[in-house]
């Protein structure tokens, strides 16, 4: 039985890495439709990855060994974080590796090395991107932690599996705290994944880029790993939001039927979330960098209100 659960966990981890380019392809496709274009095929990100993986690696001669190591560290940290979240099934052995706090820590580790690598080559753009990334993450992390603490307080546990389990046993409840936490997590996810109101992933315009500025010196396999890690991070936030707030459909045992249903449910939820992301990116304009703190303040306020409304309205005296 233990071997079977580990096998399922392993397949789920591979599935996350395999699905991430599909999600990004879907978001790009919907955006193209909204702009009256046909857009590239859904599988285009896979083709990009393959092309980058077979290309020659170029490393700036000013770079230290850290520059070569960073893509692997970033990719492994984010993939490990993504492997611990319940994608298809709930009680897998990998989910005991990390609770919510370790998950945030793993993402912070990846971000730390990403920023270091950005500064390592010594170009102006890399340093600028790294400093901006750190500004945003320093503001986004408290909001994210307070938002997940709201959920953890409801379930009396910081493990994602118990939070989802608790939500499923309670059935459908209109929790004000969940509504606020959902709003906060959506805003944090936009900021952390570098999506449009905060950063534009499709631009290389020097004054506005954040994430792309740190990757400017990378080529070939290194660039592929960095891009892939960013896509997995988007999928990770999508799965957290989808499965924490709308957990219905996730497999609670390991029968093939339940697993198939869980996979279909999570694919459906991610499809909806991706479409919502594409619509919001089409409707909103990128904001000035100096407006980003106000944006993340709103996220922190929402998270705090979620925590307070949990204490005031839901627990009662």
């Amino acid at each position, binding site marked *: 039985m233990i071997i079977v659960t580990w096998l399922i966990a392993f397949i789920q981890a591979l599935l996350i890495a395999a699905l991430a380019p599909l999600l990004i392809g879907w978001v790009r496709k919907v955006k193209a439709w909204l702009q009256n274009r046909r857009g590239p095929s859904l599988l285009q990100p896979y083709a990009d990855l393959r092309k980058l993986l077979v290309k020659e690696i170029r490393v700036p001669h000013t770079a230290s060994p850290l520059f070569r190591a960073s893509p692997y560290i970033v990719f492994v940290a984010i993939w490990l974080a993504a492997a611990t979240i319940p994608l298809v099934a709930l009680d897998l052995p990998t989910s005991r590796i990390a609770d919510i706090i370790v998950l945030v820590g793993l993402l912070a580790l990846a971000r730390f090395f990403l920023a270091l690598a950005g500064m390592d080559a010594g170009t102006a753009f890399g340093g600028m991107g790294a400093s901006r990334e750190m500004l945003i993450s320093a503001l986004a992390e408290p909001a994210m932690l307070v938002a997940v603490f709201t959920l953890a307080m409801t379930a009396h546990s910081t493990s994602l599996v118990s939070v989802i389990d608790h939500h499923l046993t309670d059935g459908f409840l209109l929790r004000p705290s969940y509504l606020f936490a959902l709003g906060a997590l959506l805003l944090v996810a936009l900021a952390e994944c570098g999506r449009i109101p905060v950063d534009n992933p499709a631009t290389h315009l020097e004054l506005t880029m954040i994430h792309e500025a740190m990757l400017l010196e990378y080529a070939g396999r290194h660039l592929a790993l960095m891009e892939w890690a960013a896509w997995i991070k988007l999928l990770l936030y999508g799965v957290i939001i989808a499965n924490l707030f709308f957990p219905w459909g996730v497999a609670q045992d390991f029968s093939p039927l339940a697993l198939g249903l869980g996979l279909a449910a999570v694919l459906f939820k991610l499809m909806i979330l991706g479409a919502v992301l594409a619509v919001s990116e089409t409707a909103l304009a990128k904001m000035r960098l100096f407006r980003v703190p106000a944006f993340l303040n709103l996220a922190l306020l929402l998270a705090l209100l979620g925590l307070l409304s949990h204490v*005031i309205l839901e627990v009662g005296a």
Partner: protein
Amino acid sequence: MTLTVLTLLQQFVLLLAALVLFLSFVLLAQPRLIAAIHLFAWQGALIAAVTLTVALAGHAHHLYFSALLTLVLKALLIPWMLHRLVRRLGLERHTEALRWPALAMMAGVALVIFSYWLVVPMVEQGLAFTRNIVAVSLAVVLIGLLMMVLRQQAVAQVLGFMSMENGLFLAAVSATAGMPLVVELGVAFDVLVAMVLFGVFFFQIRESIDSLDVDRLNRLTETVDNEDLIQ
């Protein structure tokens, strides 16, 4: 009382009350006057929705009238009067940002915690499912007060005052399942008269100091005259 024992309709009341609190925060930080008036109208509409849902969930028929009165007065009539005033004063594009928005938000959060602490002993007595909302309504009152303190613009201060009144009404609905009709009509009339008086005051203030920034009322007129003479 935990959330699981409540019916869906009663949970909906709590959700609406939480949204009223959130709108209070947004109103506090909104720099544009017209947008702030719209937010105030939405808050009034949410209060009316809370009253209606309490009436539905608790089978309190006299609250239907309160809900209707709130909707007409707070969500339609007063915002419309404010809108007209702002247009006549030529302030449609007026913006006034808070000086330290993040600090103001944290002060608001502290007020919410304070009002919760204040209300806890009272809540232990109550039995109705709406008793948890009392803390929220007190917080709305205090945030309205904070808005009157922090804003310099007279129209924004009036919005703070009106949102305080929203909080009081929410407290009445949640603590005692509504006031008697006579009291309610009296309060509604008071608010309406206050609105008319505010309108007159706006024009008086602007005539005397040429602006609606009430901080300028602190300056002595003689010093202004002296400066003019020197120039």
